[in-house]
């Protein structure tokens, strides 16, 4: 039992990181309908921004906030300079998948060429240990969980109660109607990319803190788990993404405790495929037809 609860404890930390990132991934997808496979690269780049600030003596938590902003600006800029132009150029959903993969590969490998293949880690104390029923979390891990709860709750509330959130939901439900109602589509799309980038940045720093060593491709390797969480919850549904993240996070850590740690991700992916076979739309989504990308 102790093994189980401690595995769940670790799972909650993994789930927290997954939740921050998966909400960002899925929010931007629900608004723009572009599968952003460069999301992991935004995480890595922001993680490295935090690394350089941290090396300069800054506290990792302030660095995390700045990295989040950088991620947001970067994500918005890439959309303005590349994605939006490609979409106006006439690319459809699948063309855009290939564009985002290209951008991800270019970014990752440019970074790899710059920083080399070595492992990096932040200079951050894990903080004092907090004892729960059967497991121990460090102050660092606890703070990550708190940040995740706050950020996902803020995103939820923002989507639900603000005008911008309403515009995003409107754009997600029916782009043509949203535009006809006078919603400034372009600005809302830009803000969706920004929000998604902020969440990617914070998620990236949290991930790098949690796994303690990272390379230029760590973010992109983690992206697959994020996609699994987002798809599990029903892609495009931020609430579903949180539940998906919890499922994937806890499953991987419990799998690691009871089974082969190297195979822990396989369990999560197995569940994903099984769920999709029974509910092709994911756990928390109405069966919607596909939509074109928002131009």
């Amino acid at each position: 039992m102790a093994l189980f609860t401690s595995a769940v404890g670790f799972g909650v930390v993994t789930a927290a990181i997954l939740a921050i990132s998966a909400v960002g991934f899925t929010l931007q997808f629900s608004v723009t309908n572009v599968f952003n496979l460069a999301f992991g690269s935004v995480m890595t780049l922001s993680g490295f921004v935090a690394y350089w600030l941290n090396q300069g003596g800054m506290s990792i938590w302030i660095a995390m906030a700045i990295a989040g902003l950088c991620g947001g600006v970067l994500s918005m800029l890439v959309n303005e300079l590349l994605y939006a132009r490609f979409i106006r150029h006439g690319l459809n959903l699948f063309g855009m998948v290939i564009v985002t993969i290209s951008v991800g590969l270019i970014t990752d490998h440019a970074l790899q060429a710059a920083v080399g293949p070595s492992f990096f880690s932040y200079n951050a104390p894990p903080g004092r240990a907090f004892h729960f029923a059967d497991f121990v979390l460090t102050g660092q891990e606890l703070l990550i969980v708190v940040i995740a709860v706050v950020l996902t709750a803020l995103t939820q509330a923002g989507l639900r109660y603000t005008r911008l959130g309403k515009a995003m939901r409107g754009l997600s439900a029916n782009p043509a109607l949203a535009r006809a109602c006078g919603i400034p589509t372009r600005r809302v799309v830009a803000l969706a990319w920004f929000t998604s980038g902020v969440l990617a940045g914070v998620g990236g720093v949290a991930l790098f803190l949690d796994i303690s060593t990272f390379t230029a491709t760590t973010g992109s390797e983690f992206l697959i788990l994020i996609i699994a969480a987002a798809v599990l919850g029903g892609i495009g549904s931020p609430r579903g993404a949180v539940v998906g993240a919890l499922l994937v996070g806890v499953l991987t850590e419990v799998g690691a405790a009871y089974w082969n740690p190297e195979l822990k991700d396989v369990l999560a992916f197995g569940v994903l495929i099984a769920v999709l076979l029974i509910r092709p739309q994911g756990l928390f989504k109405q069966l919607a037809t596909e939509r074109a990308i928002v131009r």
Partner: protein
Amino acid sequence: MSAATQYYIATILVYICVDVIACWGLDLQFGVTGVLNFAFVLFQAVGAYTAAMLSLGPSSTSGGFQQYLVGLKLPFPLPILGAMLVGAALSGVVGLITLRRLRSDYQAMVMLVISVVATVIAESVIGLANGTAGLALIPNPAQSLSSLNHETQTWVFVGLCAVLTLIVGIVMYALVYSPYGRVLRGVRENEAAIEAMGRNSTKARLQVFVIGGMFGALSGALLAEFIGAWAPSEWVYPETFVFFTAVIVGGRGSVSGVALGAALVGVGVQQAVQYLPIGGDPIVLASLEWIITGVLTLTFLWVRPQGLLPERRRRFRSSTVPPARAIDGAVTS
């Protein structure tokens, strides 16, 4: 010609054949029919592993330094045929899971996930195919012609690859430029219309998935037999993207275009990078290859989305429908 030069040329020729066969397989799925198979490299890998397991003999031989399943020592065409069969069977299973019920954007993501899972499994379950280290000493069928010297054996293998490429090419032409090919292009361009004409689009997708997977497996078998080794690092999921770039650069849906793209992107970029005057840091060179591949894709999608040798489009004078634009997968609005 020195032995080294000969071997270099032979290597490049084999790589071109392998990439052309693989890209044709992907083109049939992605270029012609519009199925976005992000797990394509998995089928190449399965072909490579199967060919190895069917020709290495039991894993206890050579001191049992590598562990793997099956372990037969079959004569020449059987390992390659076995690889194609297993590749087709696995494609069938993956296709049945993904293509039948899922929305096509989910399909693409699930394929990506499957590709990653497969790598993780192959790396961690040592008994399957020797884990991260992979398989080595995979026999080259030409080496069984012991009366020939080593150079001639290499050229015999090049010949084998060329003949197989030719056969796959003929099959591709027969499939793509036939009434069946028109159905496939119809699935890509307008699925509803194809369904309305009484064709089963899911069946067509499954069929190209299996045929394409079979070609992928064939290319993997040839590659593994030529290099003599095969490991999970050869087929991580971004490798699929190189094939996509080759298809886009060559011209989606065009058999000759894709062959050109495969030679240029699959082999050309890698060779060109070696001759750049930037020193020999292998990490920088490998990164540069990926960067060039990514930039090539973006450039072509922007400037020439139809590729170097575009698919020829039939136009009918009475038609009032404007030709479809740019890169269409299966679904637009």
